[in-house]
């Protein structure tokens, strides 16, 4: 019975495997032959495109939409062939997949914009990663909120002429693309572009072709451009700027300091902003970030006469935005990213220097004195205990004195005691006559009952001894 069941299971698995394998291989063979057929029969991409271009390369070819706008239908075959799509064998119908022949299917879009918005989602078929990133962008949110002018793929990338933007190996932005970005954004954000191209960064990029400077996407991101107006964006600005401005190699090239972030963080404003950025980045702060003083798109050199912050009046104007009563001395309260030195902010430098010496020179000895005082007190207490012990148990006293005698030579003890006793006031023969020094030797004469009082009294006796000394010296 059991054997039969195993046999059945094994057989059915075998049948399934063989059967499945045959179907898969048949399907594979079928698809192969199909694709062979396509390769054999269908025209090359160029030939396929030529079919379309037969009409669509005519100059001035357009149709009028319901809105009255003309929908341009001319494609420059040369430009398309040179574009990244054209050179990678992307055909017209790869994107215009709903067109199979003539007449073309009817369009419902009433305006040019509507037409674009209907079409741009086809980009997702090949560029899914980038397309998904745009779904998080401020543009997409604006579009969803009803702003039909918000940028979609094809507003930045013209699919019929788009050149390759990134290096196929490294994925990094190509120089040409980098230089071209501000113009792309300027199609909509022209006022910002006008500011940017006059700024220290923008001038270097647009006039000198300098690729070290930030372009739009370096600060704002590419496809998932977030809103720069949120609190979290604002709180992160110091780190955004610091990406370049703490880069040693890059800053050395232009003689700029890399201390800008830590000097900012060390001061009032920066401490709070950085704290918020760390804890709850979404909270708005009224503390300034880099851009509040240096400007956003119109960032100027520090020594620029009109905007540069090295010019005190320019800095004062910035201070007064938040500190309305600020006067000419006030901007100096901010150390302008300098590390204090004898030349720059000497007062701060010398205060720091003072404490550098003051703390070890004053608190150090104080700590030492306290430790010494504590150890001396402990040693005194230990000696007192040693002195008191034999008194507590008089029976052991002789034995104790014997062991003591081994440690400290007996004659010395005998020598020491008489002069000490001579110093003592006569009224206290027994208890008080045992000063701290004398307690090293067990004073066997003392009565057990008095033992507890001994430490305090001996201390007092010690004092009275020195007091006597002083009295005599006064005389």
């Amino acid at each position: 019975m059991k054997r039969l069941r195993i046999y059945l299971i094994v057989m059915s698995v075998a049948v399934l495997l063989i059967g499945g394998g045959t179907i898969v291989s048949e399907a594979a063979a079928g698809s192969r032959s199909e694709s062979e057929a396509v390769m054999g029969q269908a025209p090359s991409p160029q030939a396929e495109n030529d079919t379309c271009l037969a009409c669509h390369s005519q100059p001035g070819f357009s149709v009028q939409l319901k809105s009255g706008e003309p929908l341009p239908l001319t494609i420059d075959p040369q430009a398309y062939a040179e574009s990244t799509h054209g050179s990678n064998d992307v055909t017209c119908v790869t994107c215009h997949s709903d067109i199979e022949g003539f007449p073309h299917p009817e369009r419902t879009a009433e305006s040019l914009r509507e037409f674009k918005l209907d079409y741009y989602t086809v980009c997702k078929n090949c560029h899914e990663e980038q397309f998904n990133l745009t779904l998080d962008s401020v543009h997409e949110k604006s579009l969803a909120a009803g702003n039909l002018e918000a940028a979609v793929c094809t507003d930045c990338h013209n699919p019929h002429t788009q050149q390759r933007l990134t290096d196929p190996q490294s994925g990094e932005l190509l120089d040409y693309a980098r230089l071209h970005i501000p113009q792309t954004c300027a199609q909509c954000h022209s006022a910002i572009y006008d500011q940017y191209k006059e700024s220290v960064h923008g001038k270097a990029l647009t006039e000198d072709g300098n690729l070290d400077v930030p372009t739009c996407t370096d600060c704002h991101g590419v496809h998932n451009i977030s809103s720069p107006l949120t609190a979290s964006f604002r709180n992160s600005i110091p780190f955004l700027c610091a990406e370049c401005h703490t880069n040693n190699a890059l800053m050395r090239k232009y003689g700029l300091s890399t201390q800008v972030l830590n000097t900012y963080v060390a001061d009032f404003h920066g401490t709070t902003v950085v704290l918020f950025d760390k804890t709850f980045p979404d909270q708005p702060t009224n503390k300034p970030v880099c851009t509040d003083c240096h400007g956003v798109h119109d960032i100027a050199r520090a020594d620029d006469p009109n905007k540069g912050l090295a010019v005190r009046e320019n800095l004062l104007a910035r201070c007064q935005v938040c500190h309305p009563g600020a006067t000419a001395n006030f901007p100096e309260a901010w150390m302008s990213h300098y590390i204090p030195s004898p030349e720059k902010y000497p007062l701060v430098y010398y205060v720091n220097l003072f404490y550098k010496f003051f703390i070890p020179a004053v608190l150090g000895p104080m700590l030492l004195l306290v430790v010494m005082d504590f150890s001396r007190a402990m040693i005194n207490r230990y000696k007192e205990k040693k002195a008191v012990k034999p008194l507590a148990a008089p029976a052991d006293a002789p034995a104790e004195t014997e062991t003591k005698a081994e440690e400290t030579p007996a004659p010395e003890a005998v020598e020491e005691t008489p002069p000490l006793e001579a110093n003592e006031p006569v009224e206290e023969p027994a208890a008080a006559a045992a000063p701290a020094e004398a307690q090293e030797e067990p004073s066997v004469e003392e009565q057990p009952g008095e033992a507890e009082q001994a430490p305090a009294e001996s201390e007092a006796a010690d004092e009275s001894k020195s007091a006597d000394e002083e009295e005599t010296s006064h005389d």
Partner: protein
Amino acid sequence: MSGNATTSLPPVRHERTFPRFTAAQRWEHAILLLSGLVLLLTGLPQKYREFSISQDLLSTPERVELIRQIHHIAAIVLALEALYHFGRILYLMSKRRLPGDLLPTWQDVRDAGHMLQYLLFLRNDKPKFGRYNFEQKVTYWFVFFGVLIMGVSGFIIWFPVFFTKFLPGGVVPAAKLAHSTEAIVIAIFILIWHVYHVHIERTNLSMFTGRLSEEEMRTFHEKEYERLTGGSLKVKSGAKK
């Protein structure tokens, strides 16, 4: 029983106490202690913001504002106390009744040298002190100048716009540095010096009780004790027995 006691037991030792601090002085100390503690507790998180506990405390602008307000209120309390203290000094000076006990003297330097010898086992007797020993004087003047520095620098960073009307702007970052460093200096000072001397070396609560016992006076302020009791050590020895 009582009859027995008078005959067989030694006479009951009657401990005299000596006034040390007036009620006003004790209140001053209490205000200094409390406001200083609040200032320290609200100041430290602002100084050490990299610690997670500070970040928890200061994580929202409202909390930053609250902590700063508490700090400012405590600062005003301490400033008023300091003003009262200065005012009283000036008043007593004008009446020529300011006791000079706390002023540093050469005797304090000699006492410190003496103490050092004692601590190095070069001498076996401690120096005899007057009303205030050099350690207590150091405490007073350290806190005196500490509060002065903290107060001046604190108000400069609290009202930078006002102070830069007549002072160079550089005083603001300098005040910030001084305020934040001096705070730590005072805190460490109190911790190692003051706490040691009044709690570990011996428990000296005269700043709260206002009085010192005869025993304490004799042991720790012998010169003052002699001055108050007529200076005779024989009297003392007799009293003790």
